[in-house]
């Protein structure tokens, strides 16, 4: 229950939906070496491909 504009209203939110709960940080997940290496490989892959796409875009503009 809460008061708003002098009126007492029911709270329809779940406990873990309240701002006081969602603003509380979650614990860190443990990533193994393989998972970390995989994520870094994916990150490098994305950067390299993005650079290629951006290079192609600008080279097409120049051409």
């Amino acid at each position: 229950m809460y008061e708003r504009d002098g009126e007492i209203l029911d709270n329809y939110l779940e406990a873990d939906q309240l701002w006081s709960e969602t603003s509380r940080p979650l614990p860190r997940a443990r990533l193994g070496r393989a998972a970390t290496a995989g994520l870094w490989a994916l990150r490098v892959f994305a950067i390299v491909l993005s650079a290629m796409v951006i290079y192609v875009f600008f080279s097409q503009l120049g051409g």
Partner: protein
Amino acid sequence: MSGPASSPAARAPLAAPPPLSHEDEDRSADRSRVFAARRGNRRWLLLWLLLGPGILAMLGENDGPSMISYTTTGATYGLGAFLPFTLLTFAMAVVCQEMVMRVGAVTHRGYGELVLQRFGRLWGWFNAVDLVFTNVITLVAEFVAIRVGLAYFHLPAGVAAALGVVLVLYTISGGRYWRWERIVLGLAIFNGLFLVAALLTGPRWGAVGHALLTASPFPGGSLSTLLLLVASTVGATVTPWMIFFQQSASADKGLTPDDLRHGRYDTVAGAVLAALFGCGAMIAGAALATHNGAGIQGLAGAGFPGALSHVSGHAVGAIFALGLIEAGAVAVLTISASTGYAVGECIGAPHSMNYSARGAAVFYGANFGAAAIAAGIILIPGAPLLSIALNANVLATVLLPVALVFLIMLANDRMLMGRFANGRRHNVAAITIVAFVALCGTAYAVDAFLKAVHLV
């Protein structure tokens, strides 16, 4: 109301109930109507109340560059394998967005926030920077679409820039998620204009049926163009901003595990509508294929409304132009919102449409700022509009696998998701999608790069 025990992310009960924030009060008011509809067994009202994030993500992604991409595909290859391929990409989008909705409803937190807190600041910021970068480029492409649409009615680029920025300001000015969602949903319905345009071009339904059933004829011609359009079509249906947006919007709307079934209806309904309207754009574009794409070179290659007007009449051109304005405008609203959510979540600042502008200055500032920067860029004369639109989608395709891998990790995180975590079939489907998207992006990027540096 399901108790805290129904949600695996719930913490131990607090000794005394904490005071509700303004955001909580607004969300509770919205949820009270959901509870009343559920208690009264008013199914249609319940559906109406819970629809939103899924339809907006899907129709938001039927944006300017996507519709230009579908139309380009239709104009380049006519009706053929791309029609069923587009349906396949929407099926992929349903798998991904259902996971997004589920994680948002169960954890009540946004994607950016979860990646940052569970996997560390480095990965959180990488994802957020990827998103803001692709969002600004995509937003430029959205303003391009609005500009192309308005140009058909002889209105200048300045009007396109002003229209987009004013719309963003108007929709975020209410301080209520519900208001924002309903205004954008109202605008998004006009995505159906592409279907109307397709019907008015007098399509050959036999060819449409043949293409859908046999996935033929398979496109021929230049491999580079084919790879560009494949990557662009994938990027037209599943993108990083949709992941950020639907999860944050589901949490902001207040969805809970009790709402998962309706969240799935919302996601599937959005995909069906978006596929229908996307195929409409492709069918309209196919009307140009028989005329060798005559006339589409206007406005730096994106002059589809003019070309359709020339081939199928003024009404088709005008409806297509209005469709482009709608597609660009709705996407400006949803993509700038996803930027606001991502920045707010990563900085740890308040990030809800239920806050006033003063209460969530970072969230609203990022939301408005992204749109304003993109609006400024389209005012630069001589910009290659079609190239920007297609490459925005390709860039999204290239960066998507990273976002999807983190999404799959979150959806499998038992600490967060409990019994709502992914099952085996879900994981097989999701991993197949990641591999397919990565393959499409890599094929285009490598082929185009090798050609650009004259190695092939």
